[in-house]
């Protein structure tokens, strides 16, 4: 479990995160949602230690991450996988080398064992025979899948996904969503997904946190989000006329 306690972060006079506390549970897809610029990505960067916080604590299974030294943080980071918005694959490495990268640095596996693990991970994300390809030869969806394979290569306990569906067509987006959900359940990972895609929210949102102007505004499940009368959430969920029509039709029934 990841626990965030009273996190605040400012850039000069601009308060981006205001006293946010939350729990992210294992075996569940924990979603952080909100409008662009609401502070979702900053919150995630603070949780994984890419950005220092002004105040607050982050605990990975009761281990206070932010007070750790570099070596201790490194141990936690080896339990952590992250899927970046653009994939963040290393351009100079092939698909196989990208997935093998964390294994070659941190595991004591032989090359054959590493290769076996790479093939298992690529197989798990439905990418077979793509080992020799380079990131420039992959489609957006394939890049995301390779990034997921790399993120799970070290058997992480915690998985962070920053807008996993951005730039993908609806069908591929659902494939990625389902993959994240399946992997979360299969390996009992604490998964945190940052998104503003309502399809993802409805597909995989077990535990949803809505961030509004840097504050935690609401928390609940994907079923509860449709029924809440919170104005800011409704403005977000029913932003399009299509969604408004659906809401009105539901109300009539």
């Amino acid at each position, binding site marked *: 479990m990841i626990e965030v306690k009273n996190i605040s972060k400012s850039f000069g006079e601009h308060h981006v995160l205001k006293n946010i506390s939350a729990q992210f549970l294992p075996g569940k897809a924990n979603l952080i949602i909100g409008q662009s610029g609401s502070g979702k990505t900053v919150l995630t960067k603070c949780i*994984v230690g*890419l950005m220092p916080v002004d105040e607050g604590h982050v605990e990975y299974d009761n281990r206070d991450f932010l007070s750790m030294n570099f070596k201790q*943080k*490194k*141990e936690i*980071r*080896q339990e*952590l*996988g*992250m899927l*970046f*918005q*653009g994939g*963040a*694959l*290393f*351009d100079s490495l092939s698909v196989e080398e990208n997935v093998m*990268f*964390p294994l*070659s*640095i*941190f595991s004591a596996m032989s090359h054959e064992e590493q290769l076996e693990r790479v093939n298992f991970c690529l197989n798990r994300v439905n990418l077979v025979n793509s080992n020799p390809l380079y990131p420039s030869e992959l489609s957006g969806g394939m890049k995301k899948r390779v990034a997921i394979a790399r993120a799970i290569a*070290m058997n992480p306990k915690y998985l*962070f996904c920053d807008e996993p569906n951005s730039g993908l067509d609806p069908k591929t987006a659902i494939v990625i969503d389902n993959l994240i959900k399946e992997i979360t359940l299969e390996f009992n990972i604490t998964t945190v997904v940052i998104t503003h895609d309502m399809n993802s929210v409805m597909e995989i949102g077990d535990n949803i946190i809505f961030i509004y102007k840097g504050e935690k505004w609401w928390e609940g499940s994907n079923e509860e989000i449709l029924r809440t009368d919170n104005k800011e959430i409704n403005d977000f969920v029913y932003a399009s006329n299509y969604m408004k029509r659906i809401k009105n039709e539901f109300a009539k029934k």
Partner: protein
Amino acid sequence: MLKFLYHTGRYFLLMKQTFSVPEKWSIFRKRLFEELDKLGWGSVGIVALVSIFMGAVITIQGAYSFTSPWIPLYAVGLATRDTTLLELSPTIISIILAGKVGSNIASEIGTMRVTDQIDALEIMGVNPSTHLILPKIIASVIINPFIILMSMFLSIFGGWMFGVLSGVVTSYEYVYGIQWGFVPYYVQYALEKTVVFAFIIASVSSYQGFFTDGGALEVGISSTKAVVWSIILVLLANFVLTQILLV
């Protein structure tokens, strides 16, 4: 002034972070050989071309400048040799390398920064500066002296070839000139300068790339800054080293 101090402090902090033990020596070795190939072998063509023509021009200019009957013609070879060894090969070629290698390093690391590849390394628990920057600095410091040695040879060779072909100097006089009063310390001095210049080019360009913030436009700006600052610092170091090593 405050901005200059900020960048200087951040540069030294980055260098401190960079010079730490790599995660795995086998990976570091592989990265080092890749950089030796990219930064060294990749620069051979342009350096060779520039060096040959640089030597040729010095020789021809020298021959036309030395009009006094008191100056023997073999002085053309001597002048080509000394200007090549003391200044043109170590400094001018390092400035050319600052343009070629510096922009390459800054744009590569800058692109990795803006596409989250550096964050990905950090998330994995890899020290990104040691993994990315250290092999580039070590490779530059190792390979640049060889490139400069090659440049020295080709510049003097270019001077001989074009000097003889254009008829401004005879082969005998040129070869006699390049052997006359040879001071072996000049080569050592040039190579010592080269090592310092190589460190400046690789580290300053890496610094500019590493702290890129934004997108493609900022990568371009970092690349330009890397070249400009590398050249300024190479020229400054050239002055200081000349004072220390020659005077």
